[in-house]
Structure formats: C-alpha cells, structure tokens
C-alpha cells in the first residue's frame, strides 16, 4: 500500500469516527425537535419516528408549554442571571488574573493555586452547605446567584486569563504608564482590549453553562424565580405524569438562544482556548 493510499484510508477512518460522534451528539437535539411537533401521546410510543398525518400536532405543544411554564418570565430570569453573571466573571476574573500575573509574590502564587483547585471541586460536594450559607446570607435572590456564579466560574476563567496574560509583554503596560495612564486606565484601555479573544471565550463557556444550569437555581431561588431549566422541569406533574409534548417544545425554545449565541462566537472559542494553551 502506497503512502498516498495509507493517508486516504486514515482520513476516511477519521471521517467515519467523526461522523458517528457527530450523529451521537446531534441526535438527541434532533429527536427533541421532531417530538416537539408530535401529539403528546405519540411521543412515548414512537419517539424516533418523524411526525406524520396522524401524529403531527402543529404548534399545539408550544402554545400549551408557554401557557403552563410561564416561559417568558423564565426566559427573562435566565437572561438576567446569565448576562450579569458572565459580565461579573469576565470583568472581575480578568482583573484578578492581571494582578496574579503582574504582582509576583507568595500570596498571588497561593491565590492562583486556590483558583485552579476550585476547578476540580465538584458542585455536588459543596451544594448543601453552600445553599444553606447563601440562604442565611440573603443571597437567595437573582442578584445573589450572580455572586455565586462568579465564585463557581472564577477558577477556569482566572486560569485562562492567566495563561494568556503571561504572553502579553509587560512593556505595553509600561508604555501606557509613560503615556499617562493610571492603573485603572492601563487595564481598561490597554490590557483588557488585548485580552479580548480570551474574554470572549470565557464569556461563551460561562454563558452556555449558566444558561443550561439547573441545580443551582433550583436549590437557591427555584421556588420564587424560575429559570428556563427549572420551569421546564415543572411540566412534570404529580404521580409521574409528564406533558411530554410541552416539555419537548420548551426544550427546543430553551436551546435556540444558546445555539445562536454559540454559532456566532464559535471561532473565538477555539482561538481563545488555543491562545491560552500555546502561549501560556
């Protein structure tokens, strides 16, 4: 077998494997989508079949889902929590990383390791103590949850910003100081714009996670302020009855914004992760 043939074979194999993985990841989304247009009684019976004359329910599931869940209010809360949490994470962790990278002493070194360590602590480990403490501190509000998301998102964000900042030459900041910047101006006018690719990556990763998160909003503010995942969960009635049609329709509506967001920003994700990994 010639080298060319070997390469062809290798490439074909890679394509086959990637196609299988692609199908495996996309099929649940597709199944949810087709089922959202089927009558609710047909979903459990024939979950994998396409809607036909008998099973097609039009937008009925969407209408009933929107009515039952209070979807627009949930959308609002999801948006509020996601936007402010992401803003807080990007703003505060980039500043923290700048401090850690530029001020080199034992304290900042220890701080860096604390942030890195926080990435490997599973949420389930701290969830009950944390929700109890948060409740006692009055953080069981949408503003409070923003603060808690900042805490959970900080580890990875600081790690990524630190990796990128190490490759940013100090001389740029010194030039800014000589040009007349104070430290705040240096950060916002010179350092932060340079960090843009990493900031976008951090924003996207955190936005996807916070938008989709179920457990934290359910435990902390679930009874009063329902985010989309929590609201969708309420479609499960008592005694195991579930309105599958409405559930599927609401799932479709909830993933649309994040998919659009991802499609717009996907090139930055890869750019940012690579920048941090290679240059850091």
């Amino acid at each position: 077998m010639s080298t060319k043939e070997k390469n062809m074979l290798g490439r074909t194999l890679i394509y086959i494997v990637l196609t299988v993985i692609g199908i495996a990841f996309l099929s649940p989304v597709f199944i949810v989508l087709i089922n959202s247009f089927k009558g609710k009684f047909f979903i459990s019976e024939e979950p994998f079949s396409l809607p036909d004359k008998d099973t097609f329910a039009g937008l009925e599931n969407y209408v009933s889902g929107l009515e039952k869940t209070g979807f627009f209010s949930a959308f609002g809360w999801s948006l509020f929590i996601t936007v402010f949490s992401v803003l807080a994470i990007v703003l505060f962790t980039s500043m923290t990383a700048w401090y850690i990278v530029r001020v080199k002493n034992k304290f900042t070194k220890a701080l860096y390791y604390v942030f890195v360590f926080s990435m490997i602590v599973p949420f389930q480990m701290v969830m009950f103590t944390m929700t109890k403490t948060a409740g006692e501190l009055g953080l069981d509000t949408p503003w409070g949850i923003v603060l808690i998301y900042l805490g959970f998102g900080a580890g990875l964000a600081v790690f990524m910003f630190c990796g990128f900042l190490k490759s940013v030459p100090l001389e740029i900041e010194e030039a800014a100081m000589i040009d007349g910047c104070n430290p705040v101006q240096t950060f916002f006018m010179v350092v932060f714009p340079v960090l843009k690719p990493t900031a976008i990556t951090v924003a996207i990763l955190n936005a996807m996670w916070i938008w989709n998160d179920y457990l934290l909003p359910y435990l902390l503010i679930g009874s009063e302020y329902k985010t989309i995942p929590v609201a969708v969960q309420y479609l499960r009635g008592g005694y195991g009855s579930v309105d599958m049609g409405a559930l599927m329709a609401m799932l479709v509506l909830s993933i649309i914004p994040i998919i659009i967001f991802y499609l717009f920003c996907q090139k930055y994700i890869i750019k940012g992760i690579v920048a941090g990994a290679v240059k850091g």
Partner: protein
Amino acid sequence: MASISLKNIYKIFEDGTTAVNDFSLEIADKEFIILVGPSGCGKSTTLRMIAGLESISKGEMKIGDRTVNSVAPKDRDIAMVFQSYALYPHMSVYRNMAFGLELRKVPKDEIDKRVREAAKILDIEHLLKRKPRALSGGQRQRVALGRAMVRSPSVFLLDEPLSNLDAKLRTTMRTEIKKLHKRLGTTFIYVTHDQTEAMTMGDRIVVMKDGVIQQVDTPQKLYDKPYNMFVAGFIGSPQMNFLDAVVSIRDSQIYLILADNEINVTSVFKDEKRIYNYDGKHVKLGIRPEDITNDAEYVKKNADKVITASLEVNEMMGSETYLYLDYSGEKIVARVNAPATEGEVNLLAIRTDKIHLFDPKTTINILF
C-alpha cells in the same frame, strides 16, 4: 529640554542583588548619552529608573531642577522607546501615536497636527490607518519613535531600539536617530550593548560593568585613552590585544619584555614618571589590531619594536585583512593592508606610541 542629574544612585532588588552601584552622572541639556555594557551590567535598569519604571533604592535623581525619585513616570516629562517597540496591538498607528496626547487632554486638532507632522518626518504617513501587526520591524520602530516624538518630551529614553532590526536597517536607523536628535534638540539617553552604535551615535558614552560606571567620556577619548582593561577590550572591533609584559629600565632605556621579544618604548615613555614605579614588574600591554603592522618597510625601520608571531588565519575583509596570530600561546589580531602566509612566522611591528599599559592586579591603565 532638561538636564539630568543622577547622584549616588543604587538599585538593590528584593533578593539583595545590586544591579546599579553608586551611579553618578550629570547629563547636559540636549546631550546624546549612550549607556553601553554587556548583558546584565545595569544599563537598562538605570534607564528604567530614569523613566520611573523602577524605584530608586538609594540616591537622588533630578530632571531639570526637580527631584523626581518618587514622581510617577507620566509626570516626568519623558518618552521611551522600547526594545520590543511596545506598540498597542489593538490600536491603529495613528491612535498609537495620539494616545499619550489624548490622555493629556490635548485638543483634537492639535493632536492631529502633531501626529501628522511626526509621521511626515518619519515617513510613515501612509501607514497611519494600519494596525501594528501589519507593519515590518523597521516601520514599527518608526511608529515607536513617532509615539515618543509627538509628546515633545524633555528627555528621550531609548532602550536598545535597534537590536530587533536586521544589520542593514540598523545602520540606516542609526543615522535616522542621530538626525532626529539634531532636529528635536532634546536630551537623548540611549541604551545599547553594541559598541558600534555607541561609538557612532553618542556625544558621550557611559561604559558600565556589573552595575558600576567604568568610564564616561567622548567616543574618541574612550577609544584612545581607556581607563581600564574592560573599557579597552569592550570598545573597538576587533577588540584590543592584551599581552603579558615586564617593564625593564636599563641604560636610560625603557623596554617591555614580552614572551619572545623585547621592544623599546623609550621614545614614548621617557617623560612618563609613573612607568619608573613599574621597573621589573609585570604589566599588561594593550595594543589595538590596527596598531600592529606587517608593512615590510615599517618593520625594517623599527627593528626594536618587532614581535614574531605565527599566522593561523587570514580574514579578508575587502579593503583590509585581519591576521589571527599565535604569539607564544597568546592569541592576537592584527588589522593590516596585505594578507600574509598562513602557518608561517611573521614579523610584525608595534606602533609603540599607541600602546596602553595596565596594572595586572587592578586592571587600571597605569598612564591614565
């Protein structure tokens, strides 16, 4: 426009390293001063202390009449050009140059006027809309100079600005910077490790080693009368040759006894009293490559100033030839007009009026 005064300046880092040791220097207004020395000699640290990017551990620094030890960099009325240019990557060339003025709230039309003027002088008018990443090394260098120029600072600080450029461009930019200094009439402090840059650009050169000033003088004086062996070896290319010698004074004649030869230096040193203290003692003889010749006629006329060395390699430079010789195990270089035969013993005459004698212990020029 400003003079700078540095009095007993020290830079001691937290780990106890003394990077700059008792540095004192008076820099006149409009002077072009070069700080030169090998890597780690403290020249960049000194420049950074003048810029305010490093704190001064001890001593007093004045720009004009103002003590600036604890003045922030932005308030020192200085501009700095960095080795890596340090252009803001997210800003256009125009904004890179205008940024400092914007921060100082200079009116927009004034900023525009100054940026365009500087761009015209530096021939970068057509690049104003580009981002730094779309520029070549030489163009970035010009933008960095432009950014410093528009501010019209009292002092220009340049930290190895040419070291990232290729050899040809470096020569061109050297002249450009020199011209710029004349045009702006501002104090320039220029750090380099390249002795050619130092010799060709500065009004005065400060030679540093291990954080200590070795000598401060004009380029020509530094070359003709180095204070110690370090300066003698550092300035000049190829560097000065050093040979072991013993001073011998007999019958009112002064000789230097070398490994294989004896040369008569009476005509040069007969009125020099300090040489008599070294009678019978070891010294280091320093002689520059161009002061050793293989010119047959000169050798014949100066038979008492001749050494014999075997030639290892000829290096043809076009207009001249470097001879790499072995003199009793010591390597010496001669810069001559005509090549010699490799592997053979050559007769070479030393121009004794150009020799330097150094104390081997203190390394100081005994005739300084």
